[in-house]
């Protein structure tokens, strides 16, 4: 039993931390978020050169061959820096889906380009009515000649504005909420019939609502077997939730240490506010919230590494705890920073907003608590 990170993991951690410290200070990040693209392609190239984009992919495709712990380390460090470059949508989701669902030829076609930083990707899965139910899907893909024709709309597609290619979840058979009959397609974001409406989110991300009107794709665009996508998507989402929880843990740690430092320097009534017991106890509570979140993340990592199926219940629990503790931690961070915590200028509120988006991505606490109850309390 050990909860240590390997030397290699420590090196990756240090290299991202160094990047955040040297090249991603708060003003730089603000400028990137405000820029036309909302991200830096130069940074993306740098990520490719430093090997970060290769972490979860198999060596045969030029990947690092990393496991879930390696990915967790990357996400935690990116979280600490509130890095907006689309690592999660491109590497974890787009790359993750191709690596898991794609055939040999498809992996060989796409993964080296993801790893090399040549393309940005996105996963188009949310629909207006679907909330967190991945299988609630109205977008259709109809067999036509030697390919498929896609019709429908996806909303809040992370990295939807910049993505060059999309993996689209579409229905090839069945009714709107059937668990069977779903398929995954790789679609060129510039293909005829693909229309994007982009907009910014509160956490600095650029997303898009994307409509597909008679979009023709070849049969090679289908990832895996037709009609069997849901279990594959669920599996990628499990890894994605662990990745997001890692990012959230990174953010909670930063919020706690920034708040602690602030209360030591901020004086009221002639003393540092950190000397007040009421505030001290609240910071002990947020420290516990952070450590507990980290512990449950470690449980998910250990189980997933051993066998992803083993982690299923823990992943629901993790999403519940991250949501609850994340809100607790950022709520206290804002409160203890007082009026300063209310300003857009300070980074505290931005960390809070990223935590809120993490909470809602792939299901909030309520949703996952219900899933947990469903699977463990059934008669």
């Amino acid at each position, binding site marked *: *039993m*050990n*909860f*240590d*990170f390997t030397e290699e993991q420590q090196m990756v951690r240090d290299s991202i931390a160094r990047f955040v410290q040297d090249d991603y200070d708060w003003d730089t990040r603000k400028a990137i978020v405000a820029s036309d693209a909302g991200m830096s392609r130069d940074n993306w190239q740098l990520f490719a050169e430093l090997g970060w984009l290769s972490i979860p992919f198999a060596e045969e495709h030029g990947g690092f061959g990393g496991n879930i*712990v390696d990915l967790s380390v990357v996400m935690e460090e990116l979280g600490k820096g509130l890095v907006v470059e689309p690592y999660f949508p491109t590497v974890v989701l787009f790359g993750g889906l191709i690596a898991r669902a794609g055939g040999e030829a498809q992996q060989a076609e796409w993964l080296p380009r993801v790893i090399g930083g040549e393309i940005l990707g996105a996963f188009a899965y949310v629909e207006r009515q679907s909330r967190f139910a991945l299988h609630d899907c109205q977008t259709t893909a109809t067999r036509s000649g030697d390919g498929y024709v896609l019709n429908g709309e996806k909303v809040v597609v992370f990295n939807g504005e910049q993505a060059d290619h999309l993996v689209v979840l579409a229905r090839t058979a069945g009714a709107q909420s059937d668990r069977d009959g779903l398929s995954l397609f790789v679609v060129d974001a510039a293909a005829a019939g693909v229309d994007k409406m982009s907009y910014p989110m509160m956490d600095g991300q650029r997303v898009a609502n994307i409509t597909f009107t008679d979009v023709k794709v070849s049969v090679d665009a289908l990832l895996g077997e037709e009609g069997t996508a849901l279990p594959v998507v669920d599996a990628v989402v499990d890894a994605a939730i662990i990745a997001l929880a890692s990012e959230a843990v990174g953010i909670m740690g930063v919020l706690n240490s920034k708040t*602690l430092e602030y*209360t*030591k320097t901020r004086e009221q009534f002639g003393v540092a506010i*950190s*000397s007040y*017991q009421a505030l*001290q*106890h609240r*910071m*002990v*509570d947020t*420290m*516990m919230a952070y*450590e*507990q*979140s*980290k*512990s*449950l993340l*470690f*449980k998910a*990592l*250990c*189980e997933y*590494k*051993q066998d992803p199926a083993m982690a299923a219940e*823990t992943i629901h*629990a993790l999403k*519940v*705890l991250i949501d*609850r503790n994340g809100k607790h931690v950022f709520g206290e961070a804002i409160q203890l920073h007082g009026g300063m915590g209310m300003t857009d200028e300070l980074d505290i509120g931005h960390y809070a907003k990223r935590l809120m988006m993490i909470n809602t991505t792939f299901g909030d606490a309520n949703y996952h*608590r219900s899933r*947990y*109850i469903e699977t*463990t*309390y059934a*008669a």
Partner: protein
Amino acid sequence: MDTAYSAEDLAFRDEVRDFFEKAFTPEVQNSLRSVDYKEAIEEWQKKLYEQGWVAPNWPAEYGGTGWTATQKYIYETERSLAGIPGVVPFGLVMVANVIMAYGTDEQKSYFLPRILKSEDWWCQGYSEPGSGSDLASLKTKAERDGDDFIINGAKIWTTYAQYADWIFCLVRTDNSGKKQEGITFILIDMKSEGIKVNPIISIDNHHSLNEVEFNNVRVPAKNVVGEVGKGWTVAKALLAHERTGIAGVADVKRAVRVIKEVAAKEENGGQRLLDDPGFQQRLADIEVELMALEFTELRTLATQAAGGFPGPESSLLKIKGTELQQATQELLMEIAAYYQGVLPTDRDSNALGHEFATDARRSYMYGRAATIYGGSNEVQKNIIAKYVLGLE
């Protein structure tokens, strides 16, 4: 990052499971529920001693098991799965660690084997009528008289003092310096002249707490552990030593299992209590926090096993553990509904319909103490604020 069991671990788990199955017989279980708790638990501890497992946390040289962190975890998990109570901590866990770290060779060779064999029953003399969580304000006086100390004062909340052969005490040997200075850790024979034990009946209607009065009690100076006047250091080392296990994770896990069992049997108008959404949500929230706490404890265990000093995560074990204990006790009381109020009588509790209700009431009422003893949870937060967060 790895918690996978090796083949040896799995074999060990089977060995532990097998032993518990054979040794923790229905007779043993019944005797532990009977009136003579002392005799029953001592008998069980003697069985563990014969097996060589009574002291998982002792080094092998003193008769401990020499287990790895994983093995200790497996043992605790299996113990709770089988519904087996933990050992009485005052001797085997608390004073034994102090004697191992600070005791003389004579103290080690006399006391440790007796503790291991459950020949002596120990109790803890820390709190006093005037000092609660402010432990260092203690006033029980020890005055030197030749080769002895003369003890005067009183200790309170002393669990099972009525059974005890020995009490380990913090006493004041010097009043001149800071209040943490001048405290001495001393071992006192409960049969000494001048000791009086006054029972305190607690809100669970039981007698486990006591006040212990010391009236000119003569104690040999060789019973001091560590240096005279350095008792505070000794006491703090004891606290740091026993962080793991303090959360009671294994026992909360068992409580959750019991809750699920009984909530699946209880019905409101035909709906299982376990299907009530409000109930489900509260139970699930407890489980989520418990899963995290289990790994907080494992992180502490792994660090200690690797010879490191436990990190900040270890400091929350007491607070979170006791909160979860109380949360499960509360749920169990609610499941018992009207029967939560039933006091033990000579009638068969099965005939009353709810066997678990009596236990539920006792654990709930006595369980209020968990956030008070061992340094109240509020004091725990003061300590964490100061020593972990560096706040003055």
